[in-house]
């Protein structure tokens, strides 16, 4: 409702420029906005998941169930369910209505990334540490796991030609070395995009779990893959210090307009720092997909590139520590990132200046001096009741006070069923946010006497154990 009143210049700005807020609840390692952008889920080192309300910057819910660092978070489309994966070899699907666990799935290895199907919150895909990725169906209480292939699709094996047994053996050996590091769903969830340790991108059909396409993008490990909101732009961060944006074909047209063999992944941009040879901790698209953002290794800066020209437009600064996960708000120009050392969540956004003309109705803001021309009848005196009556007679509009703006509805169609996390009034009783205070770089101390749980985070944060685990994937 406020758009018609907000300064258009403020609205026109698409990326944030100032560090505006700092959130803190334990040591956060992992962040994710829900699809409407009302809530921010943050996973902590101690395995607690905290849901922040972005409007109030307060804690809306705390979810306790994991015992080790949270690795990834994934919201269901309506925002009611949240899938968390952790280094304690578990994935948990939470119902945010009451904070209960819908399902707990145990794996044979720590989980890298688990992502929910875009429309079915009872289906998710998980990539595991030194294990094969799985597609997990949790629609019944008995979990069904299906293994997804990691090996790339060999071009000639499809031809049906004779394959030299020696080459075949070599390939098999190579294939065995592939492990999948990232798995995400496409926009409709019909396909899975998987990134492997050898730099391959595999496209896998969800229904059959068969690889239908493979492309080698780079030589390094694929660390992270993200799809833009439009579902067609893919962002790949790999350990060769290059961030790639890839144009995807419309996979929903597969078999209608084109065949599997026609799939081509085309690299659009490569973002890298040639001079400093920086590598990137975490990458994300902006809400519209126009910008790409990345946090840098061993550096407190966040880089923002614009995609139409592929140029660097902004470096967000502020905190004194290296940043880990970075996320972009789904509708506003707002970037959040968490510090690796302190576990603080930093928020960059736009501070709009107060328009003074808004405070005094009879003043207007002018660019330069304007000579005032008085109206002919401006200072004529009329009897008060006459003026009043004339005014009343002029009120001949037919306003509609009930019907909501349809324009608004179009945008809100997806959100109409959006779930609001219940407002709990006694939430912050459990643990105060000011429990931990920083006494120096990398060292934290608990205010007052503490219990064992929080002490553990402090140690973890101080020794950098958490950072090591995040980086092990890259090496």
């Amino acid at each position, binding site marked *: 409702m*406020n758009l018609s009143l907000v300064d258009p210049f403020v609205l026109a700005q698409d990326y944030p420029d100032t560090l505006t807020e700092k959130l803190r609840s334990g040591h956060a390692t992992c962040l994710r906005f829900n699809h409407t952008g009302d809530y921010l889920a943050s996973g902590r080192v101690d395995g607690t998941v905290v849901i922040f309300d972005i409007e109030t910057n307060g804690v809306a819910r705390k979810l306790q169930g994991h015992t080790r660092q949270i690795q990834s978070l994934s919201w269901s489309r309506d925002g009611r369910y949240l899938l968390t994966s952790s280094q304690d070899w578990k994935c948990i699907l939470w119902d945010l209505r009451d904070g209960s666990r819908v399902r707990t799935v145990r794996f044979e290895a720590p989980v890298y990334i688990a992502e929910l199907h875009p429309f079915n919150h009872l289906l998710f895909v998980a990539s595991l540490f030194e294990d094969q990725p799985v597609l997990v169906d949790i629609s019944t209480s008995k979990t069904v796991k299906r293994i997804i292939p990691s090996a790339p699709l060999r071009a000639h094996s499809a031809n049906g030609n004779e394959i030299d047994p020696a080459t075949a053996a070599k390939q098999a050996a190579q294939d065995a070395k592939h492990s999948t590091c990232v798995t995400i769903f496409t926009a409709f969830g019909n396909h899975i995009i998987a990134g492997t340790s050898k730099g391959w991108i595999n496209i896998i059909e969800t229904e059959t779990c068969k690889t239908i396409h493979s492309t080698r993008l780079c030589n390094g490990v694929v660390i992270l893959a993200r799809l833009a909101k439009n579902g067609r732009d893919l962002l790949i961060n790999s350990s060769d210090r290059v961030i790639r944006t890839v144009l995807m074909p419309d996979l929903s047209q597969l078999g209608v307009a084109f065949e599997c063999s026609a799939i081509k992944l085309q690299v659009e941009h490569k973002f890298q720092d040639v001079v400093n040879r920086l590598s990137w901790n975490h990458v994300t698209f902006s809400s519209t997909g126009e910008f790409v953002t990345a946090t840098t290794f061993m550096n407190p800066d966040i880089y923002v590139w614009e995609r139409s020209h592929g140029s660097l437009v902004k470096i967000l600064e502020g905190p004194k520590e290296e940043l880990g996960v970075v996320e972009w708000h789904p509708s506003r120009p707002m970037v959040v990132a968490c510090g690796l050392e302190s576990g603080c969540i930093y928020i960059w956004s736009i501070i*709009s200046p107060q328009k003074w003309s808004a405070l005094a109705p009879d003043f207007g803001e002018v660019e330069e001096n304007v000579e005032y021309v008085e109206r002919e009848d401006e200072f004529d005196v009329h009897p008060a009741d006459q003026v009043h009556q004339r005014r009343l007679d002029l009120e001949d*509009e037919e306003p509609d006070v009930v019907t909501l*703006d349809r324009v608004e509805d179009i945008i809100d169609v*997806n959100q109409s069923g959006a779930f609001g996390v219940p*407002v709990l009034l006694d939430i912050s009783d459990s643990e105060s946010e000011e429990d931990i205070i920083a006494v120096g770089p990398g060292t934290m101390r608990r205010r007052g006497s503490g219990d064992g749980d929080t002490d553990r985070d402090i140690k973890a944060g101080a020794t950098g154990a958490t950072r090591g685990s995040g980086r092990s994937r890259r090496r």
Partner: protein
Amino acid sequence: MSSATAPGAGQAEAESQRRSWSKSRERSASPQRAEYERRGDRKSGSSAEISGNTDEYWLDAQERRSPSPIDRNAGLSSNDQSDRGSHDEDGMDHDGEERISEREESLDNSSTPVPSVETRAKPERLNYKEKFVLRGHLRGVSAVQFSPDCSMIASGGADAAVKVWDTSSGRLIYTFEGHLAGISTIAWSPDGQWIASGSDDKTIRFWNVNTGRAHTKIFEGHHNYVYQIAFAPKGNILVSGSYDEAVFVWDVRRARVMRSLPAHSDPVAGIDVVHDGTLIVSCALDGLVRVWDTHSGQCLKTLVHEDNPPATCVKFSPNGKYILAWTLDGCVRMWNYVESRVIKTFQGHVNKKYSLSGCFGDYGFHSSDADAAKRDPPLAFAVSGSEDGAILCWDIISKSVLQRIEGHTDVVLGVHTGKYNGKRLIVSCGLDKTVRVWEEEEEEEEEREERDDAVEDPKANGISLSAAHDSAPITGQALAPVDVIDNEAIADPDDGDNEMVDIPSEAASTTETTLARAEDVEMT
């Protein structure tokens, strides 16, 4: 969420919006939509493409999911929901098309309401009849509100008590005591679990309706009487206006002030939050009405009427495009706040001294009357109390008084509309220590003329005043029995109503000031 298209430019804008909408629809429906869009269009074009398609999926999926527990303005949105229901039954193919045509229709309606030929005539008057008189407050009742589902009524008054009543039976459910001085304002949280009350003791307190207990945290921070409070639609934010001239935005979960708006130079009397929570409106006795951005806390607009009369209450219209403002010159003005224009002035009530309040309501066909509801521009009225003991309902478009509800014997301070079990209700409260519930009675076509005579008869109005107490029918027509409920007699054993008599004398004196707020201003 863009808002309020100007009525003048609305037509053209609506046209173009419709065109672009249907275009994107066509595109998403056609099978050859694989062609890739250039970057310039990406923001609008291809994201719409996705959302357009996933829409259908989403609507289907929605059936399986339970809806959000916060169901605000249930009465008003029911229209939309019935639309959606019909879509689900339709085949996937013409689903898209049909929606376009419907949208076109409604776009037309919103810019230029064209009365359709087939609809029934618009009712000329309302017919609310007294249903209950709820007694129990020991002093004047300053605020009353239906719960979000309208099953309960909360009222707060100068006796420092919040009372919760059952809408269907009129029984007293709870009496919440704890405030040290009179209560000026109450608000239900959108999930219906909590009642917030603002008092002359400078605090806001929360009461849990499920458990009947007070919230342990007290919202302290104001330096003077809390005048009016309002919840944001999600229930996570509470906004309060105070006699200390500030507007506080509270984080409800932490009971802490999130932001203090340097609002006014006189006591802030009215406050409201728009339906999507992005705007706050406040008004003060300095005569200014200010619109704020909830997120940034900045003033976006200031509205002031030439004569600068003290403004005592503000309300957003249900669609958030207009603001209704009560001023002490005996007018209720409806503002188009985007253009800073008064578009309607409602008169006929008496308002010189007290902070009266009111709200919007709808009338005419029920939304179950799906056909009529869809074609007609929705009929709405504004309702307000009056210092002569009446409640006035004005038609929004014609400004004519649709009904003058008589019954209260003293100033009517608070009025709220609601809908329960398919019946439209009004609840009102006032200085006569009562809360009254009024129910709309459906008129039969043949009876209407007869009824018209009856209402116009001045005697009938006079009778209805006393009729409430005698529980006798007003005219010859059959009426719903008018219950007079004396809750002091029913009094719950747990909450001793009788203990309430000993209000600290100091508090008693301050409550006088709440109710006679305007007097203070005149004095200073």
